[in-house]
């Protein structure tokens, strides 16, 4: 198939596969939380399993009990969506993104991606036969949205803009002002705004306890598709469950693709998601504090490596340091450096180029891993840079 020509395994998965084939490799690559799924979620899932409630499909958009809970949680933050017709439970966020792309895009359409942003968006867009167009975020100002660059990238073929907020890999947040600026431009041109909010709960600044979302604005309702996954905040990457919300006419189109791809999200995981949504804020704060501690730990390590320049992420769980080419021998690009780190130092990291052109000369390091892994991985990284220092 011609449209599959540009689709390839993401760089993150390639690195993880290479890492898996090398014994004793420490991985700071894939964004997997180190925690097990909370026992309360597992217990509720076992109860549903033993009650014989998970053997059959759910309706294609998911269990109504879960959708109503999602509707309620959205309503609490001021986003009004109908559980029956505007919420779809998906097999993780990437299925939601791929279904959205396949449902709303035509071949040769263009989708704006901010660079750097999550690797797999590119593949999802290509899967739909469309073309990703990168718009660079401004690194000098802390990876902020550049309105002029965004406007310059738009043309008649532009069909959607995909925003990862908080952004993976930079750990930065698109604030309300920036989102409204994007939305207003998109509104004038009838461009879909696809919001991936997988890391919406990982906010580290004291004054920022919740994330502003464009779903709160009725004006952009017909254009916004919001996507969330239970994978990160609830340590449920293996359960493959997430959801999307969209205005009814868009949700209907996406549902048809979702049905064709997966029929429904795994029902057992939907029961897990029900319990996850009941997790009290206090319980989540325990996890958040631990992630904060790991961020500080990785910060301390990075501070000692002069060849890496970085900003402290205010969200998500990644550092995205820039490689100072003048401080390291034989440096060519982020991909070759990542391979060298894997082969020589036995530490897996993701090359920044995987996240778009502006990601080049950066590395993505995950602090979702446990402290032992972070300490060992960063020690190896540090030793490598010391050995190859100029």
């Amino acid at each position, binding site marked *: 198939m011609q449209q599959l020509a540009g689709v390839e395994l993401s760089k993150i998965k390639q690195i993880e596969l290479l890492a898996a084939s090398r014994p004793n490799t420490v991985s700071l690559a894939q964004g997997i939380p180190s925690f097990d799924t909370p026992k309360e979620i597992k217990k509720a899932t076992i109860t549903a399993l033993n009650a014989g*409630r*998970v053997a*059959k499909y759910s309706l294609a958009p998911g*269990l*109504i*009990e879960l959708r*109503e809970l999602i509707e*309620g949680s959205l309503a609490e933050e001021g986003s009004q969506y*109908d559980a029956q017709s505007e919420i779809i439970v998906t097999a993780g966020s990437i299925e939601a993104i791929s279904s959205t792309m396949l449902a709303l895009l035509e071949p040769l359409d263009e989708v704006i991606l901010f660079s750097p942003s999550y690797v797999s968006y590119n593949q999802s867009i290509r899967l739909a036969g469309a073309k990703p167009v990168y718009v660079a975020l401004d690194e000098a100002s802390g990876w902020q949205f550049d309105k002029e660059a965004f406007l310059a990238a738009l043309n008649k073929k532009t069909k959607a803009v995909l925003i990862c907020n908080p952004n993976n890999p930079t750990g930065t947040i698109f604030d309300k002002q920036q989102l409204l600026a994007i939305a207003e431009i998109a509104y004038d041109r009838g461009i879909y705004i696809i919001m991936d909010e997988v890391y919406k709960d990982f906010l580290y600044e004291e004054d920022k306890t919740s994330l502003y979302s464009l779903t709160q604005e009725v004006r952009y309702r017909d254009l916004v598709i919001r996507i969330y996954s239970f994978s990160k905040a609830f340590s449920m990457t293996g359960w493959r469950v997430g959801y999307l919300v969209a205005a009814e006419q868009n949700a209907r189109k996406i549902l048809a693709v979702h049905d064709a791809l997966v029929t429904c999200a795994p*029902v057992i995981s939907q029961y897990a998601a029900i319990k996850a949504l009941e997790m009290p804020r206090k319980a989540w704060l325990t996890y958040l504090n631990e992630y904060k501690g790991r961020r500080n730990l990785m910060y301390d390590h990075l501070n000692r490596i002069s060849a890496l320049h970085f900003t402290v992420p205010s969200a998500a769980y990644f550092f995205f340091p820039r490689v100072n080419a003048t401080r390291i021998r034989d440096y060519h690009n982020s991909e070759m450096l990542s391979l060298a780190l894997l082969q020589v130092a036995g530490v897996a990291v993701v090359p920044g180029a995987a996240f778009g052109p502006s990601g080049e000369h950066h590395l993505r390091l995950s602090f979702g891993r446990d402290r032992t892994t972070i300490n060992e991985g960063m020690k190896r990284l540090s030793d490598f840079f010391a050995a190859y220092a100029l």
Partner: protein
Amino acid sequence: MRYSIKKVLSWFLCALARYRLGRSHTVVVAVAGIVGKSTAKRTVAKKLKKFGEVFVSKKNYNTEIGLPLTLLDLEPPYSQTVGEWGTILYRAFVRAFFSPPLPRLAVVEFGVAEKGDMLQLLKIVTPIVAVITNISVSDFNSQTTLEDLSIEFAVLAASVPKQGLVVLNGDNNYAKIVKSAAKARIITYGAKEGNEVHPVAPKVMSSASDTATLAATIISDFISQRGTP
């Protein structure tokens, strides 16, 4: 949780919630149905706010344990440990007797998964108004049939006193079963002919928010005529 412990717990919480409701003289609107309960609950509550403060049951706390807890401004313990339950029971006791009364109007969700559930919920709350939303398939894994669940909703309709009101989505295939059980005034809404209240736009209602808005308007008119409690 063991069945016997659950029963004791349910009885205790039910008694406390009933006591708080009783001393508050709260008029309760119960929202039931298989699909669209949460939307209807929020829409009705929003509409009724013009009459004053309205208590709204939280999240999906709509079971024999969840409902009394939410009426006592509590939430089920997340981890379900004995210690957590001990704390909850102590707080429930204090709230029932010493917390400020509930507002005069309350909108609560009734969740029914199997036969007999409705009777348990009615032990906690006697609604003056009952709203029954959509009765349609939502879960292929359920052991309970739609007919069984319709009978549960009929039990709710029958519990509403003569001076009360039953608001029923008349587009349901099972509306007749519910309708025949009610002794209070019953108003059906929906797109089909034969319903008393229809949507303004001549279309087939598909979203829960459309139907919820109709139900909310009916209830608001009823409370308005009946007078604020």
